[in-house]
């Protein structure tokens, strides 16, 4: 699983950080930052949840 984030779309709701804290972080303005673009398998559920709850569709899963 590869994860991509679209920072210009991000609205800083912070929900991805709550859903998958090992994968997503925020910069000083609350905008999404990647910690791991190839998350470990035990983090995949959290990443999928983050994709589902992101209000701005700023997170994408890319099949490799």
């Amino acid at each position, binding site marked *: 699983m590869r994860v991509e984030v679209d920072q*210009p779309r991000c*609205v800083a709701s912070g929900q991805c950080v709550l859903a998958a804290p090992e994968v997503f972080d925020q910069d*000083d*303005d*609350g905008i999404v930052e990647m910690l791991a673009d190839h998350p470990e398998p035990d983090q995949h559920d959290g990443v999928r*949840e983050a994709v589902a*709850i992101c*209000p*701005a569709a700023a997170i994408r899963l890319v099949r490799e």
Partner: protein
Amino acid sequence: MTETLPDTSTAAHEYPSPRAAGCPFDPPPALRALQAERPVSRVRIWDGSTAWLVTRHDQMRALLGDPRISADATRPGYPHSSPGTQASSRVRRTFLVMDDPEHARLRRMVTAPFAIRKVEALRPAVQRTTDDLIDALLAGPKPADLVEAFALPLPSLVICALLGVPYEDHDLFQRNTRVIVSRSATPEEVVTAQQALTEYLDDLLTVKRAHPADDLLSRLAAERVNTGELTRREAAQMGVLLLSAGHETTANMIALGTLALLENPDQLALLRDAEDPKVVAGAVEELLRYLTIVHSGRRRVALEDIEIGGEVIRAGDGIIVAGDIANRDPEAFPDPDRLDLTRDARRHVAFGFGVHQCLGQPLARVELQVVYSTLYHRIPTLQLAADVDGLPFKHDGLIYGVHELPVTW
């Protein structure tokens, strides 16, 4: 009790419609009928105009994430919530009712203090404030009004500290906010309240420019007003938005949430005995879903024709997205009318969806997690000191809740 469900085959039901007597936590029965039979349908609002009402969870998310809709309250066709909000939209413009890119530019000026790390750093202070207020409540007379003694001061104190607003002015901003969120306030009353708050914040920003402190208003003054990125008026209106939204919403969640838990003692016991922060966090999401205090519909206008739910919303048509019934959509949440603190409710739309989703949600979560995990633990005998049916519910509010909540212990 007999209920007459609306005939959903004819056009344009009245919106909003009343909740059923004796069901203070459930959305109006008319919304249920529409969701089941015609989830995207025409409704008639207060000024006689019609708008599209969207009631399903998946449709709400799709629509609020769709760039073909606008939140710009100055566009023709925009379905205003009340005469007061219509009048206020002529004198006040915040990013809440703007579209990108202007919306994003302004919103990003105030996102920093709401980042997860920053609100987590506030948790100990929120805990202390919560404990202090409970100490004072327990030391005072009973019965007591939980709204006045606890639900309203807690989020007010927290947002005051974050913004740099002196808490001793709470009567002024709480009173004017109450007018702004009342659907039955006259346009004159709403505009007057709006102006009073804007002037108050403008004065405060002047003080912050001269004597900056470590707070959001000081940063807005120094980094945005002094640089010419924001006018004083824009900064003041942004301050009004954050101050009002920062206390009124959470206060209603605390009081109404407590009432819902007192009415569901098994769920209250679950929360009172919870030691795992994840259990508490899950409970907060479920209470957000179950109560959906923003119960007057989120307002938009279509920029292009949009096909959804077998209907075509035409460019220029008003749209109302009803989060209260969307959060009770059985397709999204099995057995939706049951308050079940153990369910995974994270996909609720209580904070809205799309680019306008609530900016303060991380702070609201921390406040509610602290409050719900502390209040019932410290006052295990907490009980209602009035009849539920006689409580003053905020039926005419843009935001739902109770005006007062008499409790004893």
